[in-house]
């Protein structure tokens, strides 16, 4: 592999824009982060934050038109994916980078037996012959915990339950042993006991195969249990980036702080929940200044005038806020008094 420092993926100043009747929507606007080999990176955000578009950009699946990658670099194992031809990207997509989505039905072909769909992948990418591909398909279904895999491989997608379908999806995504798995809300449509199964499965497979994972989710509980690093997105920007424990213990951005406080903690007795007022912004009509300013509880005049700086708070901890250092200090104070 062409890495020298353990970095598998580096997204640098990515900008993905959409042309709409409403004008240019800067869905992703200057996003940067890095993913180390063997790590899980969580990307958290609400709808419209740009978290899914970021990942569609990584695998070059942004619908064009209306979308286009307007700038930046996506360096995967030493190669800038944005410089590759469509054909070269196809060699990587599915083979070295694969994806699972919230609704597996959208990525499984309803008219094709699972066996054929799994075999297509490895015949194309790994050069398997028919017999090898078939055996590999059965092996993958077994690995993701489908009971009676040898029989079920002949079924169609609709014959599986939601949880089982997501397992099939994971089997398909991992069948070529990708270096990077992008999981976009993989458990959002599932029941909580099934969610636990799938998350446990992703963890286990990650340990076994060494695959790096990007986990996109709105669920801070899932992030807490699954990830090493977190990127918090809002209005197409990275608002905060930190190792997971640090982010939860010492958030350095008012949006992250608000988000953390607005989630009910089942292990604690809480009164009224903290609530972030207002609505997420319309990315097509962002005003100057900080996009979170209209909802921020510590907004000052400067926030409405100037776009905030991306402030480094700790070795790997950054926050997009005029008052990042102050917010960080407050978090430190709170965490020391709560101990």
């Amino acid at each position: 592999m062409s890495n020298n420092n353990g970095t598998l993926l580096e997204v640098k100043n990515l900008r993905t824009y959409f042309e709409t009747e409403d004008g240019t929507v800067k869905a992703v606007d200057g996003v940067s982060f890095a993913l180390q080999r063997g790590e899980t990176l969580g990307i958290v955000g609400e709808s419209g934050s740009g978290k899914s578009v970021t990942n569609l950009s990584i695998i070059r699946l942004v619908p064009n038109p209306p979308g286009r990658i307007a700038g930046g670099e996506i360096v995967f194992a030493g190669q800038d994916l944005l410089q590759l031809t469509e054909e070269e990207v196809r060699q990587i997509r599915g083979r070295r980078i694969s994806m699972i989505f919230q609704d597996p039905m959208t990525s499984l072909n309803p008219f094709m037996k699972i066996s054929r769909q799994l075999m297509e992948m490895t015949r194309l990418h790994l050069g398997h012959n028919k017999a090898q591909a078939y055996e590999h398909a059965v092996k993958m279904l077994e690995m993701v915990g489908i009971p009676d895999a040898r029989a079920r491989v002949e079924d169609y997608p609709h014959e599986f339950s939601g949880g089982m379908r997501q397992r099939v999806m994971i089997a398909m995504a991992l069948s070529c042993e990708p270096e990077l798995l992008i999981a976009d809300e993989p458990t959002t449509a599932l029941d909580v006991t099934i969610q636990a199964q799938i998350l446990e499965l992703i963890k286990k497979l990650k340990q076994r195969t060494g695959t790096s994972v990007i986990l996109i989710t709105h669920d801070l509980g899932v992030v807490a249990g699954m990830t090493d690093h977190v990127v918090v997105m809002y209005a197409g920007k990275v608002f905060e980036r930190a190792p997971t424990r640090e982010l939860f213990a010492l958030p350095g951005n008012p949006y992250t702080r608000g988000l953390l406080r607005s989630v009910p903690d089942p292990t604690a007795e809480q009164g009224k929940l903290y609530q972030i007022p207002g609505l997420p912004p319309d990315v097509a009509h962002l005003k100057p200044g900080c996009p979170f300013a209209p909802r921020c509880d510590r907004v000052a005049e400067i926030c409405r005038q100037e776009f905030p700086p991306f402030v480094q708070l700790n070795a790997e901890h950054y926050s997009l806020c005029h008052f990042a250092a102050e917010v960080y200090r407050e978090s430190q104070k709170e965490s020391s008094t709560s101990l």
Partner: protein
Amino acid sequence: MTESPGLMQSAPPRLTTLVREPLVAIRDLKVYFKAGKGRIVKAVDGVTLDIFKGETLGLVGESGCGKSTLGRTILRLTEPTAGQVLYRDQDLAKLSAKQMREQRRHLQIIFQDPYASLNPRMTVGQIIGEPLDTFKLASGTEAERRVQELMETVGLSKRFVKRYPHEFSGGQRQRIGIARALAVDPDFIVADEPISALDVSIQAQIMNLLERLKREKNLTYLFISHDLRAVRHVSDRVAVMYLGKLVELTGARTIYEEPLMPYTKALISAVPVPDPEIESQRRRIVLEGDVPSPLNPPAGCRFHTRCPYAIQSCKEVEPALVEIKPDHFAACIRISPDQPDIDRVKAGEAPGLSA
């Protein structure tokens, strides 16, 4: 005897510490659907439950457990197959369609997808005002004033009165749905997954709004959700359903901290906690397999196919909901009031059977 609906009917789950009157009393309610080829889905199969005046009763369970059907049946949006729904001493299940419409003044519902439940061709003002007209509660300028007041109550600007649902975000649409439900000044609201479709920062807003309205308007809620964190936060008591049956019922804190029945234990342990320190130390009970099809539920205890504690008797005996601890009901033959902790019950024993 463990399987005795009659017994359950005479001793419904009740809070004994607080003497409270049930606002809605559900008695042995059954809702069956025909599923073609002569098959029947028992979506709700013999549920007995009191909802006390002024409480928020959380109703949780996974998809297909019957929780939404139960909620809809209380309001007769779905017709019951058998059983009673008592409200102010009358059985809603037996009312004529016309009589039931009258009762909907007092019993309202909020849906998960507020967009699907709002008429896209009506303005917000018309949507919220419609029930006022239907029930002849107000008209003309009085109705307009009420609509504005309701919009203010739920945190919508009065300026939006002439706008259409599609011009609003999910959270705002949910506020419209809540305002419409409040228009008739109801006693009781079924909130069916009211926050599931909303963004995290908006979920807190809606939960806080529902809690404030409850205090201000003396409402009683049945809060249906698969989100146990939200249910834990808003509810006084929580009822757990599995494949059409009530399997556990107790206070919101107790159900989270000391669940008794193995399914509830697994459900609680599966809930991700937003704290990496806690998450790294947690031992999860990961259930094997899927929820069985409600078309063909397992015999005996319906959970036995996935239950790590299941023994032979669990496949044969349908457990009744028993008061294992004060105000804490659970349906499991492997525990009893004398031996409430299933982990301490000897292998193969079913103390609930001999009780």
